[in-house]
C-alpha cells in the first residue's frame, strides 16, 4: 500500500515515560521532544467509585503534541504494570494499526486546545473518557457503487472520535474532536484532526426516527456552527417501541439503544475549496443513556429498565443482578460495543502541497502556519469519480474489560 508520507511517529508503551516519547512526525518537526507544558485535556481524569488506578498512573499514558504540550492518549483499561483499573476504555489499541508508525500516538484534545487560538470565540473542551479509537488495516473498499467488483482498493484506516454516550453533552453540543487517518492503495490519503460540527447545535435526532429533530437546549458553546450529518440518539419513545411495548412482545434493546453519530467533515482551504472530505458514521450499542425529558438532566438510564418486572432477565438484562446502578461495571449499558462505517473518502488536492494548516474547525486552510493552526496532511491527488467508501470496522468487537463502567 502506498505510504505517501509520514506525519507522525511517537513510540510509546504502557509504562514508557513521557521523556522517552520522541516525535519524528513531519507534522511536528519543529515540535520539542520534551513537553513544554500540559494541555487542557491532560490530567482531567481522576478515579471514582470502584476505579483503582491513581491519576499519576493514568497520566503516564501521554504524548507530546505537535505544539509541545502534553496530552493524554490511548491506554488499556487495565494498567498492565499494576493491574489497577481505570474504569473506562478508549477502544482499539492503535499500535496495531499499520498507520501507527506514521501517525504515532493520538493526542486527545488537540483540536479542542487550539480552537480559541484560531479565532473561534468560545472554548469547547470534552471529557476524557469519550475519546474512542478504532482502526482496520487493508480494508477492502467499495468503489463507485460497484462494491469491489470492478476496482480493488484497500485502505488502512485509523480514527478517533470523542463520542461520549453517558452524559447530556451530546444532546445539545455538536462540536466533537475527530482524528481521521486513511491511506489507500490508489494513493488516496489524508490525516485530519479537527473539531467537527455533527448535526445542528442544540438539538438531537431521535435514533429510531431520524426525521424527528428534538430541541434539547442550548449548545455549548452557543456559537457552535451547524454541521452536516446528525447525532442520532435514542429517546424514550425508542425504548417504548422496542423494549417496553414491542409489537411481538419480545424486547430488543439493540434496536432501541443505538447511537449513530454521522459525520460530514472536511478540510477546506481559505477560499473554501474542499481539500479532503469524509463522512464516517460512529455507532455505539448499549449506551448508558437515552433522552428522557422526565428524568433529571434528561438522562434516562437503560439499566433501570432491567428492573421493570416484564424485562427482568430479558435480552440485554439477562444476568443483571438486582440493584445495579448505571455506573456499575456489571451493567451491560456502558457503550463498549462500537463500530464505524467508514463511508466516503474524497481528496481534491491535485495541485498540492501535502501539508496544509487549518484552524481547529478544519477551515481557513493555508500553506503556512498561523496562530491556532493545526497541521493537516493531504495526499497530492484528486480522486474525483472514484467515490471510495464503504467498509465497516469494529462490528464484532467489544471493548469491555475488568472495571470498565459508565461513564465510559
Amino acid at each position, binding site marked *: 500500500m502506498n505510504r505517501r508520507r509520514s506525519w507522525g511517529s511517537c513510540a510509546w508503551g504502557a509504562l514508557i515515560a513521557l521523556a522517552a516519547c520522541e516525535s519524528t512526525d513531519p507534522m511536528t518537526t519543529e515540535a520539542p521532544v520534551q513537553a513544554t507544558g500540559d494541555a487542557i485535556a491532560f490530567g482531567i481524569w481522576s478515579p471514582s467509585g470502584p476505579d483503582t488506578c491513581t491519576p499519576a498512573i493514568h497520566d503516564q499514558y501521554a504524548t507530546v503534541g505537535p505544539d509541545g504540550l502534553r496530552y493524554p492518549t490511548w491506554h488499556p483499561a487495565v494498567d498492565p504494570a499494576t493491574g489497577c483499573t481505570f474504569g473506562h476504555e478508549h477502544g482499539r489499541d492503535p499500535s496495531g494499526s499499520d498507520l501507527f508508525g506514521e501517525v504515532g500516538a493520538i493526542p486527545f484534545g488537540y483540536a479542542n486546545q487550539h480552537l480559541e487560538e484560531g479565532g473561534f470565540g468560545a472554548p469547547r473542551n470534552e471529557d476524557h473518557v469519550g475519546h474512542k479509537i478504532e482502526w482496520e488495516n487493508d480494508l477492502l473498499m467499495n468503489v*463507485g457503487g460497484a462494491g469491489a*467488483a*470492478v*476496482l480493488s482498493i484497500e485502505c488502512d484506516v485509523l480514527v478517533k472520535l470523542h463520542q461520549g454516550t453517558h452524559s447530556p453533552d451530546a444532546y445539545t453540543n455538536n462540536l466533537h474532536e475527530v482524528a481521521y487517518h486513511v491511506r489507500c492503495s*490508489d494513493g488516496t490519503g489524508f490525516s485530519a484532526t479537527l473539531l467537527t460540527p455533527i448535526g445542528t447545535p442544540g438539538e438531537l435526532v431521535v435514533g429510531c426516527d431520524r426525521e424527528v429533530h428534538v430541541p434539547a437546549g442550548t449548545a455549548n458553546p452557543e456559537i457552535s456552527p451547524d454541521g452536516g450529518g446528525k447525532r442520532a440518539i435514542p429517546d424514550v419513545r425508542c425504548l417504548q417501541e422496542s423494549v417496553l411495548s414491542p409489537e411481538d412482545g419480545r424486547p430488543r434493546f439493540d434496536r432501541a439503544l443505538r447511537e449513530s453519530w454521522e459525520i460530514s467533515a472536511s478540510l477546506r482551504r481559505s477560499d473554501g475549496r474542499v481539500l479532503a472530505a469524509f463522512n464516517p458514521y460512529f455507532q455505539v450499542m448499549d449506551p448508558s443513556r437515552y433522552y428522557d425529558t422526565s428524568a433529571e438532566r434528561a438522562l434516562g438510564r437503560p439499566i433501570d429498565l432491567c428492573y421493570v418486572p416484564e424485562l427482568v432477565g430479558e435480552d440485554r438484562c439477562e444476568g443483571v443482578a438486582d440493584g445495579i446502578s448505571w455506573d456499575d461495571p456489571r451493567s451491560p449499558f456502558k457503550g463498549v460495543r462500537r463500530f464505524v462505517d467508514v463511508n466516503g473518502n474524497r481528496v481534491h488536492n491535485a495541485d498540492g502541497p501535502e501539508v496544509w494548516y487549518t484552524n481547529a474547525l478544519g477551515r481557513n486552510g493555508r500553506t503556512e502556519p498561523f496562530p491556532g493552526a493545526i497541521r493537516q496532511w493531504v495526499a497530492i491527488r484528486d480522486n*474525483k*469519480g472514484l467515490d471510495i467508501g464503504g467498509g465497516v470496522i469494529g462490528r464484532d468487537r467489544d471493548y469491555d474489560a475488568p472495571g470498565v463502567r459508565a461513564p465510559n
Partner: protein
Amino acid sequence: MFFLALIGIAVPGPAVSAQERPGAGVWWTASAAAHASRLTCDLCEPGRDLGSALGLGIGTYAAPNLRIGMDLGYATGTDDGVRESVLSAGLVAEIHPLERRGLHLIGGLGWAGYRAEDFAYDGVRLRLGLGWDLRLADTWVVGNRLTYDASSFGSLKNEGEPVVRGVGLGTLQFGLYVGRR
C-alpha cells in the same frame, strides 16, 4: 450448450471443403458462448468471472477461403452482485488456411465497451481466434469458436469521470455458432 460444444470438438464430422462452399455471396452466423472478461490495471479487481455471450456476424467473401464482414457482440455476467457487460462491434475476417478443412482463423478489429454500474470503458478491440465449421446441410453450418478480444490504453470512467488510465480489457469466449456460408 457446452455439452454440445464439446461434442462438436470430439466428433468433427464432415468438414466443409473450399470446393463445397459457395465461396461467394453473403454469409452470416449467430453465436452463443461462455465468456470471461476482466479489466487489467493496477487497481482492477483481478478476478475473472464467467458469463454468457451472444454474437452476430454478417459479411461476404473476399476469396473462396476468406470471409470478411462485421460482427456485433454482447456479453454479460454478475460479479459480487454487480452486472458487468461487454459490448463489441467491428470488422472481422475468417480464413480457412487448409483446404477441405473446417478449421479457420479469426481476426478482427473494432470497438469494445465495458459497463458495470456507473463504470464505463471504451477501447479499440483486437480479436484473435479460431473456429471449426461443421456442415449441416447445403450451406448451413454449425461450429465451435474460441476467441480472445483484447483492448488497452483506455480510461475507466465512473459517471463520465476518468478514474483510472491505462486500462486494458480482455475477453475470452468459447461457444457454438450456427450460420450460412
